[in-house]
């Protein structure tokens, strides 16, 4: 136990945890949106994120990006990366919906079938990017991509530097970008769901699909919309991930998806602001846990906290609701 280390650098660990949790939160939005409307846990969402990281990898590779480009180019690469990742992830999420879930919905399949389909799709994507694509694209892309299932590195776009120091807490440029970008994306999504006509449709379907349909809301379009929105958020997470950690792998989504799903449940699944809170909370708890014990305890701590929270608040910190609460 390293209490003095935790207390001595509490600010630093909190900032580290927040920037870690911000990425969880962005991915968690995808789970929460789909669950809020369809009552479906889209376990393939982790692969939507993974596809986004590969899109960024391929883009930067094709552009010939080197380590530490000049700042103007760096911003361009990041913006292009965001666009490409959003399109790739959003497109993947939409494809999942159209190819897998919609036919099941038409047949009124029971929820369990959706769940197992999601898990199956997730495996298909993992192996597609682990084995099939490296064989097909091995010659086009960097040599590292041709190694089935191994990690592939990406260039460092922005050199990590300490921006400012408060007490003994150093805040780096990367942490600030991750936090600001994640919160901005979430604010945008929150505004979209709560303030626009399309968002009203989403909330209506979440609340009561039949009534919404009677009121003239096109349910299928709403469902497509939430998959795409969740995908775009995962794409943004993929870009931030690529910028901060600079590597990807076919199985990268698995643990991250699990954590993001945990964050969604922690905050109250189906609740957008809950996903944000849950993600940030989970990130902080993990860093505290890793500091207090050893780093291999972080998952244990995270899930113990999840269980404890759910014991006292079974619907999560903010409660389940996309439609009901005015949120």
């Amino acid at each position, binding site marked *: 136990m390293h209490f003095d280390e935790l207390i001595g650098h509490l600010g630093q660990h909190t900032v580290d945890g927040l920037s870690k949790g911000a990425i969880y939160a962005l991915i968690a939005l995808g789970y929460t949106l789909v669950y809020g409307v369809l009552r479906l846990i889209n376990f393939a969402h982790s692969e939507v994120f993974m596809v986004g990281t590969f899109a960024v990898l391929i883009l930067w590779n094709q552009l010939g990006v080197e380590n530490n480009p000049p700042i103007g180019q760096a911003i361009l690469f990041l913006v292009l990366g965001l666009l490409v990742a959003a399109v790739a992830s959003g497109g993947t999420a939409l494809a999942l919906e159209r190819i897998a879930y919609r036919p099941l919905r038409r047949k009124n399949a029971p929820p369990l079938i959706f769940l197992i389909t999601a898990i199956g799709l997730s495996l298909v994507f993992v192996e597609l990017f682990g084995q099939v694509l490296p064989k097909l694209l091995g010659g086009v892309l960097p040599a590292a991509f041709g190694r089935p*299932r191994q*990690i592939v590195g990406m260039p460092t776009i922005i050199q990590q530097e300490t921006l400012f120091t408060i007490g003994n807490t150093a805040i780096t440029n990367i942490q600030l970008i991750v936090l600001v970008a994640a919160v901005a994306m979430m604010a945008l999504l929150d505004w979209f769901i709560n303030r626009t006509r399309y968002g009203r449709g989403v909330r209506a379907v979440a609340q009561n699909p039949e009534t919404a349909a009677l009121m003239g809301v096109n349910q299928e379009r709403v469902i497509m919309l939430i998959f795409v929105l969740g995908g775009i958020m995962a794409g943004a997470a993929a870009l931030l991930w690529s910028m901060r950690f600079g590597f990807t792998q076919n199985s990268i989504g698995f643990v991250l998806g699990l954590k993001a799903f945990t964050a969604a449940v922690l905050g109250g699944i189906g609740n957008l602001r809950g996903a944000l809170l849950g993600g940030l909370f989970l990130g902080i708890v993990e860093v505290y846990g890793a500091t207090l014990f050893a*780093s*291999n305890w*972080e998952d244990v701590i995270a899930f113990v906290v999840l269980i404890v929270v759910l014991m006292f608040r079974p619907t999560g910190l903010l409660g389940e609701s996309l439609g009901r609460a005015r949120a």
Partner: protein
Amino acid sequence: MRRSYVRALSTAALAATLVVAAGCQDSGGGDGGTASGDCGGKIAIFGAFTGDNAGLVIPSLNGGKLAVKQFNEANPDCKVTLQEFDTQGDPAVATPFANQIAGDNSFLGVIGGHFSGESDATMPIYQAAGLAMVAPSATRTDLTQKGNTSFFRVVGNDGTQAGAVATYLKSQNAQKVFMIDDASAYGAGITDELGKQLGPLVVNKDKIQERQAQFDATISKIKAAQADYVFYGGYTREAAPLVKQMRAAGVQAKFVGPDGLYDPAFPEGASGGAEGAIITCPCLPADKAGGTFSADYQKEYGIAPGSYGAEGFDAAKIYLDAFKDGKKTRADILAYVKAYDKQGVSKYIKFDAKGDVDPTKVVIWAYQIKGTAIEPLQELKLS
């Protein structure tokens, strides 16, 4: 109409994926037949041929395939087949394969495992089936100290390697060594051995877990300890992001790791962050291997043999010699391996009672990352 089209397309995509995935499972080294005539037979090779740390293992697989190919060309009337089992380095995947191999009487010997965890998990199965195992790269010390009678390795163990690392660190005047391991059979094993040898030079420790991606907490601890050396016991998958994030966070400490990091994916996965990192390995640099091995390997695969190419070749060679000698049953082959006493391309191979090679014949090298290459630096003193 349109719906069925979409469904047909998705089914086809799924089927294609499965076929490709299945195709990777068993691309045997020969025609898949069993022993023909009086001579020859079938051997199995298992290890992480794909997966997180495959770059470490593939040279050994290639070395084994090369030995079998050369043998079959030289002995057309003595056909040997090498069948691959890709465990991805996972003990849970290796175990059902072990049961399959043990239950199929056409298999007369096993090359593997390549990692300590998968070896540990499958040793009892092969022993019960009377099958010899010759491991090219499973280095955890206690694998040969559990009373198993069918496990042999053509590589030095981690005790020897840890001794060499300790000697190296002391010779570099290391004062504060921060030790990290991945809590795996291999990583924790070698890190503990090194810890014992370094004693008070170890300033602090941390354990991470497999597939971890973010190391903020570990890096804070390294900074707080003001370490001048970081030793990481584990494999490439976690080491590459760890060293990259360490460097990004401004940690200047030298990074040292054992043979688990000898994988081209390590420098590439860290995209520049691993520059200057030291890897120790009980494996020879390509040009130091005996005979024409390096040239043959280069000719066959178009690249120099990496980590354990020579060891994989030697492991296969033991079985090939046994077949050449007319051995046809598992028991005969096991006895033959036990009594093996010949010069291999990697080292002189003769097993002691426990299945280890003579520690004085083990050679440990330090390699250094330069760009995306892993270059030989110097041979290390064992103690």
